[in-house]
């Protein structure tokens, strides 16, 4: 005779079920509260203090923000970050999409190898890539100058990393090498998810390759494209390691490689004013939020219209 469990009271069982999800997420919530939420809230408080060294704090109200918005270095950092973000979005993403479309073609021989090859720079990490490119961009002896001199007659002593006007192009070129393959993977996955029947229907209607791309492919990958756009923008706003290492732990000549996060780091961890750095951090966070909301509004994901 099989064992029959004793009936449990419905009320007790139901309350257990209601509590269970909270119980399971509680370890995360606890850790997040201690190591995530509290530091975030504390940094908001610190943003209104001038901190000096390990102990001293003085309430300064909005003065950190007033100084920040008047500081020419912060203006430079914001401008540089926006320039980098612009090129990231308008150069990097189309290139990534183009590569993905190319590497999605069945007729292309060795496309698996090429996919790996284009993605592989991302396996190296920003610091290694930055060191590598700082040598490649070296004047007179750097490989890039030698190649440009050989191909186009560009001066071999072109100072990519010490000529203010060339610093940002050098950083953008490096980030292209690093991230195009990475974003390509997202687009590739999205392309493979587009329903092939739609292409067949378009062909039956006499659509050419461009029309198929415009009317079938782009709408099909839109959710992923929006995701890549938003994450690439946020990532661009957070630019730090690449220029910092390429420019030998500096902001480059005339702050030409200074980004907002580098400005935050310099004030928080080099100069030691964590209060001011918190003000920078919150300003950056609000800026990123606004830009992301605008992007979502423009791309139509604001109201979930991509569902």
């Amino acid at each position, binding site marked *: 005779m099989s064992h029959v469990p004793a009936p449990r009271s419905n009320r007790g069982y139901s309350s257990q079920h209601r509590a269970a999800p909270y119980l399971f997420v509680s370890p995360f919530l606890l850790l997040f509260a201690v190591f995530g939420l509290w530091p975030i809230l504390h940094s908001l408080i610190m943003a209104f203090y001038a901190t000096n060294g390990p102990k001293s704090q003085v309430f300064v109200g909005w003065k950190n923000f007033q100084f920040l918005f008047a500081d020419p270095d912060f203006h430079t950092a914001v401008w540089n970050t926006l320039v980098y973000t612009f090129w990231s979005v308008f150069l990097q993403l189309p290139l990534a999409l183009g590569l993905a479309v190319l590497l999605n073609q069945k007729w292309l021989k060795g496309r698996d190898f090429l996919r790996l090859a284009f993605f592989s720079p991302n396996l190296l990490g920003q610091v290694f890539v930055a060191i590598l490119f700082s040598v490649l961009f070296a004047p007179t002896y*750097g490989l890039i100058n030698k190649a440009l001199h050989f191909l186009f007659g560009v001066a071999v*002593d072109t100072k990519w990393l010490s000529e203010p006007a060339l610093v940002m192009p050098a950083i953008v070129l490096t980030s292209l090498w690093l991230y195009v393959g990475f974003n390509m993977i997202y687009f590739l996955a999205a392309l493979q998810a587009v329903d092939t029947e739609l292409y067949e229907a378009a062909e039956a209607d006499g659509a050419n390759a461009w029309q198929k791309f415009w009317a079938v492919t782009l709408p099909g990958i839109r959710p992923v494209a929006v995701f890549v756009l938003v994450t690439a923008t946020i990532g661009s706003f957070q630019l730090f390691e690449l220029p910092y290492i390429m420019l030998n732990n500096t902001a480059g000549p*005339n702050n030409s490689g200074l980004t907002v996060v580098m400005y935050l780091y310099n004030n928080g961890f080099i*100069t030691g004013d964590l209060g001011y750095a918190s003000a920078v951090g919150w300003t950056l966070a609000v800026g990123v939020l606004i830009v992301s909301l605008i992007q979502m509004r423009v791309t139509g994901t604001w109201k979930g219209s991509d569902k």
Partner: protein
Amino acid sequence: MKYFPYGKAAFSILVLAVLSGGWLLSNPPPEHKATLTYWTFAKPHYESYVQILPKFEREHPGVTVDLELVSNNALTARLQSAMLANLDVPDLFEVEIGSAATLFRGPTNDIGLVDLNPRLHAPGPDGAPSLWDRVVQARFASYTDRGHIYGLPHDVHPLQLAYRRDIFAKAGVDVTKIKTWDDFIKVGHKMTIPGKQYMIELSDSDSTSIEPLLFQRGGGYFDANGQVILDNETAVQTMCWYVPLVAGPHKIANSVGFFNQVEANAIEDGYMLCYMCPDWNSKNFENNDAHVTGKMGLMPLPTAVPGGRATSTWGGTMIGLTKHSSNPDLAWQLAMFFYLDKSTVPDRFRTTNILPPVKDFWTLPAFHEKRAYWDGQRLGDSYARLAPDVPPHYSSPVIQTATDKLGQALVDCVGYYNSHGYDERGDARFEAYVRARLKASADQIRAMIKRNPY
């Protein structure tokens, strides 16, 4: 799953969580048992300390020292965090000169470092002079704040010029006749072949090279009281003199950078004839540019005026004692052991070429040895002769900003010079621009200092 209604997966996670949590609780990380902790960022220092540490531990039974090699970039942030949390603060640490003053922020009572004044001025054992009298005193400038001395200088770092002896000899140039910068520039115009050969490596895009030359002329970022002097007459005249060296049609300097293969190539190819060479960089040349052994020479820095200062200083390391040390006297004994143990000085000098700041060590035989790399020159002697004359390098908690501002001013002045030209006899417009640009930089530093509510 009779008594656990949420399924096997949830049960497994719970068991794993309980087991791993229990294991962590029953195996806490070992307690920090060393009596003293010492952080350094310089591998050569670390390696030399490791060798002699057993001797200190033998002389102090029961005392153990935890010597840690910490990344230079991480050290200041890690130290500040440790002080903030009052957790694992080292007893002693070494920090690079450019970061040292950032530790002096805030009210004096809140600074986490011990004022070394009493220990420095205490008489030495057996009637020996105090440490203050034994060390090159200008080196304390960077580590002094509001009358308190928070650091011992690890070094002096006098500056000379390293040059390609063979190329100058072939060109018939007697470098011993180069006494002033005017002499140097005249030779530079003769030796420079634009795009192929430059007289000297000097940066046109950051403060690396102009900073020591500003110090040489008695200028700097701050005076002894911490006031900004980046826009004083010395700074203006130094900038007006420096820019034509690195810009314009008659430039004799170019920049390829330091510390890497590019520098080695530039020296080996004769692309750069002279490099600014503090003692530590002479070891870089020996290690990285072996192909030019015997072809290199060292000469004092040309002077700004006849009979002027023939050196400057570049770089440095501070040794600090933290207030968090539970045994500051013992920590000081360790610092003195590393600092004054004569038995390791010769080897340390041979492996690093760094001249110690204790003047009476310079009479040791190791400092008079001939070096094959420098064509038999006595490297130690050549630096020791100049060391007493190194200029002070006054600092401030905003020193990093000041360094950046000087670099930015240089870039703008170079840009102005390239676009507007410059009359070698002196162009009032250029000088006016330099004056205004340096004032703008200095005012930005002043604004940062003013923001500090102390």
